């Protein structure tokens, strides 16, 4: 168990192994591990970001949905009001039209009646005149009795 030349040999071996470790073992291992750490960190960050995005998207979707619902309700309301208004308008317009048509019918009928009565009176007058002419031709001088005839006609 004495110190001898082995010490020198072991020292040289030790130095050589440390240098080898420093040159060809440590740097590549360190690089690989650091790269993997970076990859994992990136992955974690990405997943966190994705989770946040999802949350945001959900919130946005809900908001949009609510807005759409509200809009739809408004539209339906408006449509209902519009429909009611239209019905009202049309009904009142129809009523007015009916009244107008009826009124014009009445006046037309009245006018016709007046015209027909005038016609009839004329015809009756001429018929009476013709009859009276016939009678008078036969019995009397026409000129003598015309005042009576005219009185008759006026009474018709």
């Amino acid at each position, binding site marked *: 168990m004495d110190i*001898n030349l082995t010490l020198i040999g072991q*020292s040289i071996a030790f130095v050589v192994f440390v240098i*080898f470790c420093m040159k060809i*073992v*440590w740097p*590549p291992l360190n690089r690989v591990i650091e790269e*993997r750490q970076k*990859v994992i960190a990136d992955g974690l960050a990405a997943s966190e970001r994705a989770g946040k995005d999802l949350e945001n998207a959900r919130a946005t979707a809900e908001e949009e949905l609510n807005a759409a619902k509200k809009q739809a309700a408004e539209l339906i309301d408006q449509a209902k009001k519009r429909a009611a208004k239209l019905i009202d308008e049309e009904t009142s317009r129809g009523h007015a039209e009916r009244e107008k048509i009826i009124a014009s019918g009445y006046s037309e009928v009245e006018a016709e009646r007046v015209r027909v009565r005038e016609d009839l009176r004329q015809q009756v007058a001429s018929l009476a005149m013709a009859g009276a002419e016939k009678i008078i031709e036969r019995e009397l001088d026409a000129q003598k009795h015309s005042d009576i005839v005219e009185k008759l006609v006026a009474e018709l």
Partner: protein
Amino acid sequence: MATNGTLTSTDYIKHHLDPLQIGEGFWAINLDSLGISILLGIFFIWIFSSVAKKATTGVPGKLQTFIEMVFGFVDTTVKDSFHAKSKLIAPLALTIFVWVVLMNTMKLIPVDFLPVIAGTLGMWFAADKAGGFVAENSTFVERAMDHPWSYIKAAPTTDLNTTVALALGVFILIIYYSVKHKGLGGFIKELTLSPFNHWLLIPFNLVLELVGLIAKPLSLSLRLFGNMYAGELIFILIAMIGLWQLPLHFPWAVFHILIILLQAFIFMMLSIVYLSMASEKHE
């Protein structure tokens, strides 16, 4: 190995604690700890670099996950304790941790396993080097253990040279970082003028601070070595008691898994802390 006539218990323990060595005195080289530690270091660099090369930033495979787990563990520890910026500390900590874990793990190989294999190989390929201490009628295992190659020890961290080499590397870095971050003047000032800021007390301070400085690599290397060596000794003692070693070896090995990881972690942690202290500015 408990049942032999020619080998005493002392011989057996000594056999297992002596390294496989060539050369004499200071110029000797412990082939076992040097060879096995280099093989394990190459294994570490090979497996980590091959994973790093093929690593994907996508879903990782199981091996890549494991490697990244070790990487992340070391990275977190370094980032928690070392606040200055450095490209060296983290790879240094990773190398120390994994290499020491691998070297310590060799202890889980039963103590006679590698020696018998190595001794057998020795008898085949280098029969002329056999020790020649065994009788003609000895068993195959005894003969294998007689061969010098069987002195091989599995765990390099039970060799003081290995742990001192690691601590020495850290110690040199401590001095380098101290000088780099505090300047040479700052470093010398720290050694001479603290804890007592008076010129008369410079020698006293110097002794205190130098002891503190030297204690760092010393404690680092001796802690790891002591733990591993003592554990190895217990393994050897357990291996000596014959059949009863089976129920004993298992719990000790299980307990040792904890020590293997703990000691490697302590070595890495303390290295980081020492270097972090060295690169701190006091002003």
